[in-house]
């Protein structure tokens, strides 16, 4: 029996139909066409599927699609303002903080969750906040630098 789900995704009212045991990750990718959320592990370890759910940073692989009824969701697709990239996106490009890029949407969402709460984090705080995101390519250093640079840019703006 499929379930009808209505949620607000990146500010838009979206309806999708999914199976009751389908994860929100799969529903976002396969039903709503939002392929910015990635599946790395499917078990909460890698953070590639990170989204904001009613203002909380979560792994969408550990949420059922059916749970999203009436909830508001933010994904990487909603980060840029039209053609204007979010400072985090700009700084990731500037610092070459990605190689294959599969981890990037998750890092961007988790980093944004951090900066929304703490606009001036230390390097250590950035590393702790991003401990739930894995990257096999960059060695993390460029990602941490990009986040610190974005924080600085956002404080000036």
């Amino acid at each position, binding site marked *: *029996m499929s*379930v009808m789900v209505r949620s607000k995704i990146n500010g838009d009212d979206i309806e999708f139909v999914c*199976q*009751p*045991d389908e*994860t929100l990750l799969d529903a976002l990718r396969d039903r709503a066409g939002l392929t910015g959320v990635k599946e790395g592990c*499917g*078990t*909460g*370890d890698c*953070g590639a599927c*990170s989204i904001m*759910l009613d203002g*909380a*940073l*979560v*792994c969408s*692989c*550990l*949420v*059922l699609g*059916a*749970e999203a*009824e009436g909830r508001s969701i933010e994904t990487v697709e909603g980060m840029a303002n039209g053609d204007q990239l979010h400072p985090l996106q700009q700084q990731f490009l500037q610092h070459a903080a990605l190689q294959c890029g599969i981890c990037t949407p998750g890092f961007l969402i*988790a980093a944004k*969750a*951090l900066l929304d709460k703490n606009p001036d984090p230390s390097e250590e705080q950035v590393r*702790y*906040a991003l*401990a*739930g*995101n894995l990257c096999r390519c960059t060695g993390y250093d460029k990602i941490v630098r990009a986040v610190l640079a974005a924080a600085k840019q956002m404080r000036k703006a």
Partner: protein
Amino acid sequence: MEYLAPDKTADAVKILAKAKGNAHVLAGGSDLLVRMKTGFIEPDLIVDIKRIKPMQEIKKTASGFSIGAAVSCATLGDHKPLRKAWPGLVEAANLIGSDQIQGRCTIAGNLCNASPAADSIPALIAANAVAVVKGPKGTRRVPVEKIVTAPGKTSLKRGEIVESIHLPKRTAKMADAYLRFTPRTEMDIAVVSIAVNLTLGAKGVITDARVALGAVAKTAILVPAATKLLKGNKLDEATLDALAAACRAACKPIDDKRGTVQFRTQVAGTLAKRAALKAYTRAGGKV
């Protein structure tokens, strides 16, 4: 599979009691969905408790704090009065997983999942916490150490749900602390963990104490010998050594690649001293 999200505890209990096949309660899903994904369980029914309003609340009452079963650990960490009264429990809850996991996971789920290495369980036991359990036969108030019976097993009966977790009232000169040993600082599972909860009287003398260990036995365990030796003493070196010895004696750990029996036992004593000192200074004791 069917997914239901009732908005009343009574409805959730009714649904679960009537359910045929495999029915599971869903709180944050950080254990349940992993077990579904990896094929350990195949639910016929999932009852999501997150739409039940009272389960989303942290209440301060005359008798202490009541934490709804669906309150996420991130929300616990943001709650200042709770952090002030129960710093050890909150630090244990906030050690669970990453920020992403924190956004979802609950202490009631951590308890009901019944892992020997669960971070919040020793802290809850040390806190003398009580689980308020609702079931087809009414309400039971169960001390948390009576919930977990074996790895992955609880004393909850069919149709029973933990509705909230109750923490006793605090006064000044009471504090708790939680420490765990993990090879990585983040995103790792405790090899040994310990929670210490102390009440101090005049001149820094300990008037009450509860100590609980995690990851060194089939379930998290209370160490009654520790209570006995701490009561009536200050936290001097002899008392600390006796505490470490009592905690080591209580260990019945497994031997695996994450820690040998000898290592886990040794570390339990070391962490016991450190956690006791932390709780003691938090409670206003001077060392």
